[in-house]
């Protein structure tokens, strides 16, 4: 295991750098009605502008719009289900060394989301393809938490449409922790 000073230096060097490979995730599918209906059913959110074309036509939007808080969902990676637990819960293969891999390697294998802040610039319509560009914003030093010693990791994401116009922004914070009472 690496020394903490080494980890701190590695993390500091990543601030402002892209998350993941190039830091850009393009939605695997355009904004579409089946995924919206699946989402609306899961959360029992029957706001008619998401699923009822007639009601949407009469609304300020004039047509179906995606639920604004689906913004993060469009660019979530298509998961590789096989081996998901063996990869420490990562639903995708990680591309090369990342800040989260560095933290895993240092024993902070637990992951818990703690904050999410969205600015919705505009609602998305069917057929639009969203991209998400994320950069690391900050890493804290180790803190004692309810779950064990951990570090808070924050990144910011800018969501854009096909023309490159910003449709929303998000700040997301997770805790990477050393689980207590769990096998090391």
């Amino acid at each position, binding site marked *: 295991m690496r020394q903490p000073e080494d980890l701190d230096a590695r993390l500091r060097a990543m601030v402002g750098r892209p998350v993941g490979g190039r830091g850009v995730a393009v939605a695997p599918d355009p904004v579409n009605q089946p995924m919206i209906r699946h989402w609306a059913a899961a959360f029992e959110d029957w706001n*008619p502008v998401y699923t009822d074309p007639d009601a949407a036509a009469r609304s300020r939007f004039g047509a179906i719009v995606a*639920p604004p808080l689906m913004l993060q*969902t469009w660019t979530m990676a298509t998961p590789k289900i096989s081996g998901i637990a063996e990869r420490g819960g990562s639903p995708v293969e990680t591309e090369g060394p990342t800040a989260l891999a560095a933290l895993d390697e240092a024993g902070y294998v637990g992951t818990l989301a703690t*904050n*999410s802040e969205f600015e919705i610039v505009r609602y998305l319509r069917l057929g639009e393809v969203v991209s998400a560009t994320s950069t690391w914003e900050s890493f804290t030093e180790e803190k004692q938490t309810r779950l064990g010693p951990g570090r808070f990791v924050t990144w910011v994401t800018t969501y854009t449409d096909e023309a490159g116009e910003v449709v929303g922004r998000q700040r997301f914070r997770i805790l990477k922790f050393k689980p207590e009472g*769990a096998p090391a």
Partner: protein
Amino acid sequence: MSAPVRRTPAWGDVAEGDELPDMAVDVTATVIVAGAIASRDFMPVHHDRDYANSQGAPDIFMNILSDTAYCSRFLTDWAGPDAVVRRLAIRLGVPMFPGAPLVYSGSVTGHEVRDGEGIVEVTFRAVNDLGEHLSGTAELGFPLPG
């Protein structure tokens, strides 16, 4: 508790101090798994109890994308289809495990006209059997009259 509105309240009828109708979600394992998968979050802590146990959690727990989804439903069930969510910020507290109700409550804490739109700030929280699961603030855009 009330049914979601099908009309957005008139801007003139919204005032600081107004309380939103509470929203209760009876959270089961099905609710947690359905939300995780619909939001495309396949982290095993949100669908595999054995895996959650290995992370020190007693059970699977709700993912944050489900939390923000329920927040937006809570807000627009009150604000109606012609209101837009402009901003939403939440902070998580105690986890949400299966087998308890999650109750959202909130009130209007700000009210102003900005960029040709009526902006309503709502401050809210969601509470379960363990305590405060989340707290947050949001801004909703309402059409102005005329």
